């Protein structure tokens, strides 16, 4: 293995990992507070990929070709609409089920995921869609055939995800909303008794998670340029793997888990086999859940009787 291939895979893995981390935040926050897997989260990410393409197409059809403005406007619009999706999903499919048998919200989440997937397929068609490559520039290190290249989009992905994770950490650690979130996560009933509107907090968590997934959706769409209605499923499970790996319920865990999973997957596909990289990721999920279900940074779950 040459050093430049290794370095290239590290760069790819870092990009992939920060995306997984962004999506994993949605899983981990919801699991931390409500204790359920939001199966529709991966599909929310898929919706944001479609929204990105639609938004860019509309902007360009109006002749707006200032790239920074177009990107910012796309990001803002996508985050807004995707957040509305997160809010609605919680309101429609999960809130009526508080206190129902344990299986019920999970099944309802699967139903929601099917609705989103098929709704998008029905309205947008089943074929693979795409966006034009807007930022073709790349940075190259090394000479001749031995080089490592980082596209500007990859750089953007790493910077933007690190920034948004930092912003989110600040939000959770420093603001009043964040404090309420943490309180709700620790003990929902007690938080409600102490005057926190826990329903509102749960909605906010869904909104924040969806907005993070929207950022990931925009970045991935710009990076790969193509997507279809099925991408939410695979990416969703992998992001969930990242959340579990890091310790579900823990925000830094989600980021760490995302980075580890992304790096592991990139190295695996670079060194072993590209065909089996999804098998590798899923096997990792199974292994982690068997041997360390609390993840790297998670706290052990106490069974309450």
């Amino acid at each position, binding site marked *: 293995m040459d050093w430049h291939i290794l370095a290239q895979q590290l760069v790819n893995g870092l990009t992939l990992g920060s995306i997984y981390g962004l999506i994993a935040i949605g899983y981990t926050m919801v*699991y931390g507070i409500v204790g359920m*897997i939001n199966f529709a989260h991966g599909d929310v990410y898929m*919706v944001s990929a*479609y929204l990105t*393409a*639609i938004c860019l*197409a*509309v902007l360009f*059809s109006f002749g707006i070709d200032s790239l920074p403005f177009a990107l910012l406007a796309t990001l803002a619009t996508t985050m*807004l*609409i995707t957040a*509305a*999706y997160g809010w*609605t999903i919680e*309101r*429609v*499919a999960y809130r*009526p*089920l508080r206190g*129902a*048998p*344990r*299986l*019920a*919200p*999970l*099944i*309802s989440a*699967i*139903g*929601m995921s*099917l*609705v*989103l*997937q*098929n*709704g998008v397929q*029905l*309205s*947008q*068609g089943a074929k693979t*869609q*795409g*966006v*034009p490559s807007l930022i073709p520039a790349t940075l190259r290190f090394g000479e001749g055939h031995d080089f490592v290249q980082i596209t500007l989009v990859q750089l953007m992905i790493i910077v933007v995800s690190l920034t948004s994770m930092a912003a989110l950490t600040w939000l959770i650690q420093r603001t009043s909303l964040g404090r309420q979130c943490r309180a709700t996560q620790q003990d929902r009933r007690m938080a409600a008794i102490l005057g926190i509107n826990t329903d509102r907090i749960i909605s906010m968590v869904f909104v924040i998670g969806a907005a993070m997934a929207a950022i990931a959706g925009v970045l991935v769409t710009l990076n790969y340029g193509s997507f279809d209605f099925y991408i939410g499923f695979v990416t969703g*499970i992998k992001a969930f*793997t990242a959340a*579990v790996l890091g310790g579900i319920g823990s925000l830094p865990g989600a980021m760490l888990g995302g980075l580890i999973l992304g790096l592991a997957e990139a190295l695996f596909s670079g060194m072993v086999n590209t*065909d*089996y990289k*999804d*098998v590798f990721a*899923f*096997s990792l*999920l*199974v292994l982690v*859940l*068997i041997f360390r279900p609390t993840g790297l940074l998670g706290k052990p779950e106490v*069974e309450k*009787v």
Partner: protein
Amino acid sequence: MPPVAAAPSTTGVRWNLVFRQAVLEATAAFALALLLLGPIVGLVLDGYQVKNELQRPLLIAAIIAVGRFLVTLAMHTPTGQAALERFNARRRQPGVLVVSASESNQQRWWLLIIVAVSLTLPFLASKYWLTVLIQAMIYVLLGLGLNIVVGLAGLLDLGYVAFYAVGAYGLALGAQYLDLGFWSALPLAAMLAALFGGVLGFPVLRMHGDYLAIVTLGFGEIIRLVLNNWLEFTGGPNGVSAPAPQLFGLEFTRTARDGGIPFHEYFQISYDPTHRFIFIYLALFLIVCLMVVVVTRLRNMPIGRAWEALREDEIACRALGINHVLVKLSAFMMGATVGGIAGVFFATYQGFINPMSFNFFESALIVAIVVLGGLGSTTGVIVAAVVLTILPELLRAFADYRVFAFGVLMVLMMIWRPRGLIRPRRRAFEVKGLCR
């Protein structure tokens, strides 16, 4: 959600306030629906351009707004209040309904009629409907199998399709490499599926609820991806062909391939390609009947009761000394076996399989069958499987909306009746001759 707080008053509702609230809520619903659906439904991607179809989201949003308005108004009438009360009461119903022995005896006549109709149906149906019936039967079998795992034992298995795939590939690859026929593959594939169930079940048993669901989902995907990528062994996306079934060595083809005598020559009847399907249907029907009997018996046996007890409260069961590992493992393996048998039938009826038939949607569909039928209710599962496979055939025009409707149904069912449409029944055992 409809406002629950509004007290039912007999002295009259302040309708002007209610009306204002309804208008406000309808407007909000309209705006939200437009925000959600506007871009996704209204602007259709066409290459790097979009086509403007904004009238669609406007229409949907208008329908939602009107619906919301009417619902809010209706919730304030006495009838609406009563309906809401019933709705909430239904959600609080307990899981199992206990019926006395005399009550359940009345169902026997129905059973006879259903069996008679099911047995004559294949001889009357056209080839197209015969294939639909076979498909329905396969889903009944799958539903019954998953019902043991999800409905009775309460372990949500989202990778059930993996065992289905093991059965189907067991037949196809067994025929290809080991020269197995349908009848020899049937028990072997079932055992193989049970083995897979055990292999998956054993490490997974330490988890419960959501973790279990996601691990089984991952396992199902692993199996599908391996089938898809292992080109040399499984044929990858190109699939493999499965052998046609035989009845005591009689083939259902026009001319015998391996030197035997075809079915129609042996019985001196004219050749008809539907014979094969009738045979598959009848064999399937027998297996389904067998399964129903087995499951009913099991539910009354200690193992079945342990499954259900474990579903209701695992910690209490462990405290009472039930070996939860053994109990869960038995449910898993039992379910997997049934899935494997269904897979063999699927392969032989299709004659050809590829990994596309075993994706996550298939698993979700089987879960939907179990959930809609009522977790744990055998009758419910059978009805749901038949309805969910035959209804889309009747409504061909709406075939595209099938998955969408399943998703909506799953959400609504969970809100309306988290325990399923038909509540599982259990016969009461009446103790006679004991002093009170």
